[in-house]
């Protein structure tokens, strides 16, 4: 009886001893990592060796020459964590469990939304502390608190840098949304990114925005009708004053599916 496919049989038979040191150092190519990990699932002998290699690598981390950090670093670390804590509290308040006892454990959905919101705030703010007076942050907190809120993935296209991506947050039955981007190119001063909402395949011009360091950007999008009337959100680089119809290549695009 064959209980394993031929690939895993091969993996089981061929030990990956020669790859384990490089694996522990993180020096393998992706396909080699996949090969090692598939084999480790099945082979206790290699697993034990991998543990040893990992432990050696862990020791190497201790070999860094000890250098006293700059005197101001402690204050920066504490301030940064303080800001993160304030942000977490704002997130927890915004996305509160509904119709459950206050001390009941968080539902997975609540935890998921809080995590999403925190990631989006992180992307939006970088190391800046959260200012709940900021209109974009305030809208984001409000939207994520709505049970009907959707977070749509907006992917970078072939005309965008490899790590470009965005999220579009909104309630399908409302008109307001927030677009949060990362990894976009910085544009020349006479250019700006423009948001387009597509209705029946026809792009309707929307807000303009610019990006900061790391290609981070955020923009409130006011749709002319409910968001659910649009199928797609897209972003193109345009002249700084905007265009009535897209002239630049689409760099971000995502379907607004329910």
């Amino acid at each position, binding site marked *: 009886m064959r209980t394993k496919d031929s690939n895993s049989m091969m993996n089981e038979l061929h030990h990956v001893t*020669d790859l384990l*040191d*490089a694996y*522990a*150092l*993180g*020096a*393998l*190519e992706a396909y080699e990592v996949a090969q090692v990990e598939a084999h480790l699932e099945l082979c206790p002998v290699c697993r034990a060796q991998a*543990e*040893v*290699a*990992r*432990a*050696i*690598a*862990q*020791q*190497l*981390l*201790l*070999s*860094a*020459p*000890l*250098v*006293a*950090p*700059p005197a101001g*670093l*402690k204050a*920066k*670390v*504490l301030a*940064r*964590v*303080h800001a*993160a*804590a304030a942000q*977490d509290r704002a997130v927890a308040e915004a996305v509160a469990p509904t119709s459950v006892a206050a001390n009941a454990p968080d539902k997975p959905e609540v935890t998921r939304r809080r995590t999403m919101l925190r990631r989006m705030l992180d992307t939006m703010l970088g*190391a800046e502390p959260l200012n709940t007076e900021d209109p974009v942050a305030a809208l984001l907190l409000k939207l994520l608190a709505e049970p009907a809120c959707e977070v749509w993935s907006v992917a970078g296209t072939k005309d965008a840098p490899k790590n470009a991506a965005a999220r579009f947050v909104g309630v399908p039955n409302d008109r307001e949304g927030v677009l949060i981007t990362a990894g976009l190119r910085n544009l020349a001063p006479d250019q700006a990114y423009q948001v387009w909402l597509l209705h029946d395949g026809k792009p309707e011009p929307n807000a303009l925005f610019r990006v900061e360091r790391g290609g981070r950007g955020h923009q409130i999008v006011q749709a002319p009708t409910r968001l659910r009337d649009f199928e797609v959100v897209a972003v193109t680089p345009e002249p700084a004053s905007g265009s009535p119809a897209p002239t630049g290549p689409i760099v971000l695009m995502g379907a607004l599916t329910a």
Partner: protein
Amino acid sequence: MQRDEDAQLVTRLAGGDETALEPLYEHYGKLVFSLALRIVHDSATAEEVTQEVFVRLWRSAASFAAERGSVQTWLLRITHNLALNEIRRRQSRPVAADHFDWTVEGTLLVDSRQDGDPALAAWLRERAASIQHALAQLPEAQRKAIALAFFGGLSQAEVAAALGEPLGTVKSRIRVGMQRLRDLLLADGIDAHSLEASTYENER
């Protein structure tokens, strides 16, 4: 396994007590900063990485407290990952092979400033000396290949390109070097099988 004091501090963090962070920074801030600096080679960036590491510690405290792992091990692993992400993010800056040579002598800066926990600081210095001693006994070529991979975040192929050596040569240098390190550390009384678990507490 874990230092009792650290475990208590992490439990306090998990409960939302920010004040537990300062003693943890006193214990491990220097170690985290030093490792980050070792990888990013730039003090300002190492400071940013250090801040991010402690934010991660704050946010992961709840799940981390449940795992009951060693804080030190966790911090070093996160620092390594975040620092490598940082240098990969700025890939436009080419990795210079000589950037990653291990200067073995005179690297242990024993500063006179009192550390948060002198016994822990002494233990860390001793452990660092031990691993540096082992590294010093490797042929330079092996040391360099391992350093480029581990602290430079390069794949074996990228190490080969950076050094202008054939891939096969680099692979065997890494393999032989790591095996040698394991033997040296074992000879030095560090049991490889329990390295992960060998925290400060149970050696004290």
